C-alpha cells in the first residue's frame, strides 16, 4: 500500500517535524529546507539503515505510528511527503 502525498494542514505540520528529526539524525542542517518530493533514499537524503531506523523510532515516539509494522514495503519512506502523508493519514 502506498501513502498518498497529501497537502493538508496536518501533513504540513508533520513535514516540519520530520525535517527537524532528519537534520538531527544526520547532523546535516541543510535538510531543514528539504523539499517534500525529495527522495529519502539514494541521491536525495541518502537515508541508510541506521538513519532510517532512527527516523522510524522517532516517528513512533513522536507520532505513535509504527511505520515498519504498518507498511511492510516501507513505500512510505519514498519521500518526505509520502512519509508525512502516511503519518497524518487517519487510522
Amino acid at each position, binding site marked *: 500500500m502506498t501513502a498518498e502525498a497529501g497537502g493538508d494542514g496536518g501533513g504540513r505540520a508533520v513535514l516540519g517535524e520530520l525535517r527537524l528529526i532528519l537534520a538531527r539524525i*544526520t*547532523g*546535516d542542517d541543510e535538510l531543514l529546507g528539504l523539499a517534500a518530493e525529495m527522495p529519502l*533514499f*539514494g541521491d536525495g537524503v*541518502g*537515508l*541508510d*539503515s*541506521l*538513519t*532510517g*531506523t532512527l527516523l*522510524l523510532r522517532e516517528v513512533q515516539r513522536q507520532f505513535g505510528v509504527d511505520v*515498519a*509494522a504498518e507498511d*511492510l*514495503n*516501507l513505500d512510505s*519512506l519514498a519521500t518526505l511527503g509520502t512519509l508525512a502523508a502516511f503519518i497524518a493519514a487517519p487510522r
Partner: protein
Amino acid sequence: MIKCVIWDIDNTLLDGIYLESGQQRPGVDPELAGVLGELAGRGIVHALASKNPPEAADYVARTTRLDFAAAECGWGRKSDAVRRIIGDLGIAPDAVAFVDDDLFERAEVAAAIPEVMVLAPEDAAEAASWPEFSPPVVTDEARRRGAMYAQRRRRQEEARAFAGSRDEFLRHAGTWVRVGPAGPADLPRLHELSVRTHQFNSGAEPVSEAVLGELLASPRHQVIAVRLSDRFGDDGIVGAAVAETGEAAETGEAAETGEAAGTGESASWSVPVLMMSCRALGRGVIDALLAWLCQRAARAGAAELRVPCLVTERNVPLRIALTGAGFRAGAGARDSDEAAGAGGAPQAVFTRRLSGKLPVLPDWAAGRAPEPPGSAEAEPGSADAEPGSSVTGEPA
C-alpha cells in the same frame, strides 16, 4: 549465553575502596583478574558500573591492561548504569551478567532488570566454568571484541566532536568496506554471525559450519564475507551472504534455509543467507554488500535478485536497507504459510530488478586502506581475498 559482564569496582574488582585508599590505590583482586582475562579470551566483553569518579574506571583499565567496552561511573542507580551499558553495546539483557559485592546493589539490579544474571564476586570465578560463559566457538573476532568496543568508544567520542555530517565523518575516519569470497578459515566466524545477529539477519535459523562448508564447495553458490576497518581499528568480518546463482537447479544443500528451488526462472539470483553484525550499523556495510550482490548478479546476466526475508520487529534495519537499495517485497508473500520461518514469523521475498541504475557503494566506504594500530600481523582469512574483491574493483 553471556556476552558481557558488568563489574562493580570497589571491593569487587579492587581489593578495597578506590576513593578511601589515599595515595596507595588498592590492587586488582588476583582471582578476578584471572577471570577477566579468561573470559575476554572467550570473546566475552567487560564493562564497569561503579559509584566512583570516571578516574576509577581508567585506573582499573590501566591496572588490568584490559579493554572495557563501556564504563558508567556516577552516583545514580546501578540498574540505570546497567541499562545504559546494555543500550550502548546493543546487547540483549539476558546476555549480561552483573557482579557486585553489595547485596543491595545486586538486589536492585535483579529487581529492575530480571533478565540480567546477578552474581556476587565470590561466585564469579566459578561461574566462568558454567556453560553460559563458554561459547562453543571462539573466533578471532570474538577474542578482539573487547578491543573493538573500546575502539568504537573512541570512534563515537570523535564522531560527537566532529563538526561535519555523518558521511563526512565516515570518510574522515578512513572507513573501508571490503566485500569478497569467503574462504574455509572464515566459516567459524560466519556461523557465529548467523547465531549472534538479529537486527540484520534475513533468516531465523543459525547456519552450521557444515552447511556453510557445503555451500562453499557448491558450484551453484557463492559465500561472501564483508570486512570492515578504519583508522580506529579493524573489525574483521562483520557481514556475510550466501548467493544462490544456480540455474533453477534442485539444491538440497540449501534446504535448511527454507529456500525452495527455483521454478524455472534461470535469470534470477537468490540470497538465502544475509546477515551483518549490528556493531557495524551505520558504517555502510549492508549497503556495500547489497550493492556488491546486485552488481555481481547483473554481470552474471541475472535479471533480478531475490532476498527471502523474515518480517519481524527486530530486523527493521535490514528491511530499511533492502528498501533503500531498491528491493520491494513480493505482494501476498505474507500469506504464504509454508514460507514462514521457525518462529512462525511471516516471510517476504524482497526482489530487485537488475535493469537500470544499480546501487553503488557509498563513496566514503571505499576509502584508502587505513593503517590500524598494531596491524602488522596478517589478518586471518586474508589469503582468500582476491584482486577485485573490493566493490569498486574489477570483476573477479
